[in-house]
């Protein structure tokens, strides 16, 4: 009647700094857990929730790699507690300056999810961030000892400061579409060249900033990268 799934998806409530955050754990009960991955979605005003096409696809496809993933909604998004982020006031602010007040504080939600994940399975091996989430995820993961790799989709280099990656020696995979309006290719290559090794840059045509229709392609790319890492 419904989609056949060998994976388990579990709705979870995570204590966050501004109330409970809702999340979805995805894993396979029949396999040995190799890696634990935290996925951080894009900005809530630009399609950022745990059902975003990239976030959902990665979560579901990575199960095949004996991986447990946690995706979550930021405070004020979906059923996560907190003042709603998608509001007219915030839209007006974002319209004027491409950011909302105090959005860097959303990194505390990433921290809360990681803490919860560690309490569950003891570690976070890999962090994946998409767009605005790439900024939050990479900043957070930079100093986390257990995190051995970060995967950044369409990192918002024109909007946010990624200079911390110059000193981060964890494995890094960067994916972007060559026509991404938020990730100017020349700027990405220039910044990437300054980031610390080990690192991989994967650029091809992948539907601008949104990866629509390329979800399987990018998840295969990530699985290959993680296979190397395992």
């Amino acid at each position, binding site marked *: 009647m*419904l989609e056949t799934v060998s994976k388990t998806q579990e*709705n979870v409530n995570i204590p966050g700094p501004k109330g409970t955050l809702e999340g979805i754990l995805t894993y396979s009960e029949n396999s040995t857990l190799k890696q634990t991955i935290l996925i951080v979605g894009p900005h809530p005003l630009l399609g950022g929730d745990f059902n975003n096409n990239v976030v959902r696809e990665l979560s579901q496809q990575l199960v095949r790699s004996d991986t447990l993933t946690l995706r979550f909604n930021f405070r004020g998004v979906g059923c996560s507690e907190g003042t709603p982020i998608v509001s007219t006031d915030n839209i007006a602010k974002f*319209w004027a300056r491409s950011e909302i007040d105090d959005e860097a504080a959303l990194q505390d939600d990433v921290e809360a999810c990681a803490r919860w994940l560690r309490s569950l399975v003891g570690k976070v091996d890999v962090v994946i961030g998409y767009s605005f989430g790439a900024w939050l995820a990479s900043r957070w993961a930079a100093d986390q000892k257990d995190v051995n790799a970060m995967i950044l989709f369409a990192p918002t280099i024109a909007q946010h400061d990624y200079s911390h990656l110059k000193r981060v020696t964890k494995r890094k995979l960067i994916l972007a579409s060559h026509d991404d309006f*938020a990730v100017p290719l020349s700027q990405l290559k220039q910044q990437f060249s300054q980031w610390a090794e080990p690192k991989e840059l994967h650029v091809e045509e992948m539907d601008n900033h949104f990866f629509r229709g390329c979800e399987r392609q990018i998840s295969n790319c990530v699985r290959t990268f993680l296979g190397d890492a395992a």
Partner: protein
Amino acid sequence: METRRHIFLTGSTGLIGRYLLRDFLIQGHRVTTLVRPHEQESSRERVEKALSFARLPREITENVRVLQGQLPDFQPDAIDRRLIKECDLVVHSAASLRFDKDSNGEPFRTNVEGTRNLVELVQRLGIRRWIQVSTAYVCGDTQKTVSEDHASLSNPRNSYEKSKRIAEELVRKQPRLDWTIVRPGIVVGDSRTGYTSTYQGMYRCLKSVALLVKRLKKNLAGTRQLPLRFHLSGNELTNLVPVDWVAEAISRIALLASSQGKHFHLTPRNPISAKALVAAVQEFFAISGIEFVGSEKTELENRNAFERIFDRETSLLGPYFNDDPQFDRIHLDEFLPKLREADVNSALIQRLMKFGESDGWGIRRGHRHIQPNGFDCAGFFESYFPEAARRSELVRMRDLNARIGFEVRGQRGGFWLCQLVAGDVVSVEPTSCIPNSVDFHYRTNCATLEEITSGRMTTREAFFEKRIEIVGNIERALLLALLFEDLLREYPYRPGVKKVASTEKACA
């Protein structure tokens, strides 16, 4: 696990019903359910959709069999009868929730005649065990403590209460039925997720406040005031119960043979007060201004525009604002001593609000507008859109200056140019093509536009399914799409209706 049962369930696409279906399936039972088809969806599709919230794996959902039909007119054929006959337990949760009687005879038609016909059918097929999902409010207009086995009842306050009371009496009179009657209080969404599939009852209050809050402007102190006065002291108690708790209780009571011949109040141990309810709502929206002005039975004069809208939207709920009775839970506590408590508190109210907001209070789950000659794009862009936009949140976007194009392919499609100045739609005009000078333009087709305007798809969903393409400033186009979505939610588009459908404009 306990013995595997085969349950005949009605009302499985309703709020309680879908949770019962989920719980019975998770417990490993088989379920046969009777569901009426809709114009656009088969009975099976409706069940699949109703159950989708539970994200159950296929091996579990395969234990559902769907019969097509509608109470009270259900005429089972030989196959239907055979399938029902295999069941050993009936859980009758189908009901009409109408408070006032309509021209079709609802709620009596479904609640009384439907129960009567089903009772007769299952008895003919030899099934004895029957669980009747009723309501705690069959007690009528009383403020005393209500016993589960109450003998004397006060006057019902509306047709719904009366119909449910008659249905109970009908069930109790059946000598060949081993009945149990369960009576939930006022059912609200899921205690953990806030999920609900319906916005009736108490939700009308929450939804009305949510819509009014959108019209408020911040004062100099940066807060917003919603001037609503309630004719209450604030200490009145309301028996709200979350749906997952109700379903858990029913699914367990149903399988207890010893519960036969008993009534169960499924009501909270600690009902929430009006004051706590309002405080939670005010905190959620970061507003103030809602007042309790005492319960004296004097008319409040000079109702302001906000109050008039609220009164109108919640007029049928009046009796439920007064102090609820206290319901005893002797049987419930005796039969299910370990049942978790799920009192509705401030955190849960905020969770319900949160879900309601994210779900657009159900408004966007509209039905398809079928227009014989295709969707009237010109009517939408040139008549509805400018008027609705001027009354919507767009006008608060003082920095919103943009020239936007709409390109809609298909029969009755075309090109339109829209000029926005300081949040105001100053013009929407047809054009022969989209000029390069626009800030951005949306490209879609008539079918997608029709789905969006009918609320069956959001702009975001359409974009991520590649049914909308954006040319130009993508970021701003996505932001504006969020406001368009709000606009459609607040002022649903009704093709053929010239005036924008909306509630009264409350603030000048």
